[in-house]
């Protein structure tokens, strides 16, 4: 059974985020505007004003309150949605942890932007990285269509009875939030159909007035340990669930994304570039040109960042001769980029091969074609036993 063809619109990533949320029929929405996400919050308000979206739209006084509003509404039983970026995300930090620990299936968009400290109104994945230990599921997309599709998949993942976890859908601020592309918007009835399986599942615990049940009790000793253990086991289950949902989405809507990771021309590849977000698009083009020059290179696109897709990465990278990881963020306390640092924990399973860390594309700087060509050349050299540099901040060397 296939979904009907949707309406195609040429709209920006932000607008796509609003459409993606709207067609999933959220009941309580709270969003505080922040560059580069503002258009998303405005578009949602417009949908409500036009009667297109029947939801409680709460004009909160700050992102911390935005997260608290959707958290509590979700615990009361509502489907909820919010969106933020950078400064807003770190301002939510305590509420982020409560949302995940209360196991509230909130779906949030994060238009990635550099975090405060060095003030910057520019793209970078530092905000996602800085929230990786809050217990949320974090997924990163590459283009506008994927924003919409991933939001739909995010509800089916978050509200799944076996998961019950909030999901953060990340897309690059500026590079995607302002990028206009032709995007197919599926009919809302088809989205209902795709999300219908959730209704056959047992109901999750809800907070109801007059019922002597309390949310957020103190976890005393083993009570605390048990709740954390259940949370981590749910995160483990997320990995296969992401793959299952991707398949179901592809079977129904006709678009597959690979689930936890996408493997592009990796079958016979000897060297791999690991990338995520919009940069992965550019990497595809350079992989193709390099292939024509006879270099056996492939790309692994990381979609699921939390939980880290260890098993799929080991399977995809085992036996390769060298890997180059492009991080669009940095890891305070390590010289490698964060995704590279996490990949290195799998080195014992992948094999004692060179894993080169590249930090690029910070603060709206481009992960451009020459940079990616350089990455592939150096990784290729390392694969042939030539000396290589473990960590390269590409912009610093230009």
């Amino acid at each position, binding site marked *: 059974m296939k979904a009907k063809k949707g309406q195609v619109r040429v709209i920006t990533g932000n607008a796509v985020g609003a459409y993606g949320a709207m067609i999933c029929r959220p009941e309580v929405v709270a969003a505080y505007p922040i560059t580069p996400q503002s258009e998303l919050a405005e578009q949602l308000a417009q949908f409500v004003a036009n009667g297109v979206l029947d939801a409680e739209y709460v004009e909160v006084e700050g992102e911390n309150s935005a997260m608290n509003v959707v958290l509590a509404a979700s615990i009361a039983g509502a489907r909820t949605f919010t969106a933020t970026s950078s400064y807003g995300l770190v301002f939510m930090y305590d509420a982020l942890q409560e949302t995940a*620990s*209360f*196991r509230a299936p909130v779906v949030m968009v994060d238009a990635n932007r550099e975090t405060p400290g060095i003030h910057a109104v520019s793209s970078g994945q530092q905000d996602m990285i800085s929230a990786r230990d809050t217990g949320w599921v974090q997924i990163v997309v590459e283009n506008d269509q994927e924003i919409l599709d991933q939001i739909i998949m995010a509800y089916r993942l978050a509200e799944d009875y076996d998961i*019950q976890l909030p999901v953060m859908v990340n897309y690059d601020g500026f590079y995607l939030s302002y990028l206009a592309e032709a995007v197919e918007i599926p009919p809302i009835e088809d989205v209902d159909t795709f999300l219908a399986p959730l209704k056959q599942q047992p109901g*999750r*615990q809800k907070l109801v007035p007059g019922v*002597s*049940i*309390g*949310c*957020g*009790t*103190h*976890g005393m000793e*083993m*009570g*605390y*340990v*048990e*709740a954390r253990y*259940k*949370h981590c086991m*749910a995160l483990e289950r997320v990995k296969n669930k992401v793959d299952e949902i991707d398949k179901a989405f592809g079977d129904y809507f006709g678009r597959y994304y690979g689930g936890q990771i996408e493997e592009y021309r990796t079958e016979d590849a000897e060297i791999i570039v690991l990338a995520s977000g919009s940069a992965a698009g550019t990497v595809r083009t350079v992989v193709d040109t390099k292939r024509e020059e006879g270099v056996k290179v492939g790309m692994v696109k990381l979609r699921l960042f939390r939980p880290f897709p260890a098993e799929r990465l080991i399977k995809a990278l085992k036996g390769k001769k060298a890997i180059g990881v492009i991080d669009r963020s940095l890891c305070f306390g390590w010289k490698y980029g964060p995704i590279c640092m996490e990949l290195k924990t799998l080195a014992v399973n992948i094999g004692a091969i060179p894993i080169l860390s590249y930090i690029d594309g910070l603060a709206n700087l481009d992960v451009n074609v020459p940079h990616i060509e350089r990455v592939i050349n150096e990784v290729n050299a390392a694969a042939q036993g030539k000396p290589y540099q473990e960590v390269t901040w590409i912009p610093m060397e230009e």
Partner: protein
Amino acid sequence: MVIKHKNIFKTESAWSNADEKLLCLDTGSWRTERPVLDKEKCNYCGLCALYCPPQCMKDMGDYFEADLAFCKGCGICATECPRNAIAMVPEGEFADEG
């Protein structure tokens, strides 16, 4: 990993359920004094019961009596009684009651 722990929560996260387990402290043991009523003076106005923070004064029909399982011996009932009908008596006086 062999899990030996028996689940405390039926839910995924930390929820309490008063129907399943209503907690209660033996606050009566915190007391160093207890209220003793002189029924002659009492006119059943109930202010002692209204002002009692643990709300542990039982309505006995024509006077109120503190539930000694919970009374913390704060002495507010004695202070607030408009007819000074309540005296606070050291627990030691009742030690032999066991």
